């Protein structure tokens, strides 16, 4: 193997696992309504915190919501990789937090993340 190929191979191994290909915010909006609406809204704290502005925000930052200590103390900033890990298995990502909902399909996660990113820019 040439040196360049070796380097490329090493970079590929070391690179963090990629999030599914960039999601579709339109599909994400439909998924958010069907899968997330039970607990969340964009503009109101309900069972879960409001999501307007979540993308790019430090975890535990929705005003007025009573977060778990685990989430409040985490230093997570919600970007694509963090949201992807969170939606895959919240308990594994931040032990001691209170959301048990998991979204197993990587494409669905990508779509919802794209929707949240879009809405956070409004």
């Amino acid at each position, binding site marked *: 193997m040439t040196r360049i190929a070796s380097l490329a191979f090493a970079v590929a191994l070391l690179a963090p696992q990629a999030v599914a290909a960039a999601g579709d915010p339109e599909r994400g909006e439909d998924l958010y309504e069907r899968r997330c609406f039970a607990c969340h809204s964009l503009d109101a704290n309900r069972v879960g915190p409001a999501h307007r502005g979540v993308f790019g925000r430090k975890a535990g930052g929705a005003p007025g919501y009573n977060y778990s200590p685990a989430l409040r103390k985490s230093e997570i900033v919600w970007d694509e990789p963090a949201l992807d890990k969170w939606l895959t298995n*919240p308990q594994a990502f931040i032990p001691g937090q209170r959301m048990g909902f998991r979204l197993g399909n990587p494409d669905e996660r990508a779509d919802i993340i794209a929707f949240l990113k879009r809405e956070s820019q409004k």
Partner: protein
Amino acid sequence: MNDTAILRPPAGFLAERRAFLSGVGKATLSASAVALIVGCESLAQGTSTAASDAAILNAALGLEHEGITAYQLGAESGLLQKPVLDVAVMFKNHHEEHREILIGAIRKLGGTPVAPKSKDEYARALNAASLKSQTDVLRLAARLERGAANAYIGVMPSFGERALAQVAARLVADETMHWTVLSQALGDKLPVKALAFGA
């Protein structure tokens, strides 16, 4: 186009409706609901799994609190006419049974059941002021029921105690039943593809 003719509560339901509208009476736990909790004899307190499961159930309890209040708001809005109002009362009663099941399970796990918020808080969060017709109320109820079914399906993999997954599955069945009735009353088409929930 709505088809509220689909909403026909069983005979003898008027007594419960009168009690509901007068504010008297509280849904008592059915024998089957008690059995569901008692059947979870393996629930253990004091473990990290118990704490995690209790937290998940408390989120579900939050859903039920909101759903109960949503039906209460709908019934008090004056927008629901018979027989829709009677069915709303029935579904509210179902959610009250769910509430009691969850409270029982949370306590068995050594947790503290989350308290409901005020009716005003729920009304603001659900934008109740925007509801102007019976259709609006049914549409909100259908959204919440579908959401609840999907939420229960979504948390099942997270339970440490497997018995709780079956509890959740039975609650899903009720939410799906509610959604089906409401969606048909709204004239919505049934899903063409299978596996419409949890997706």
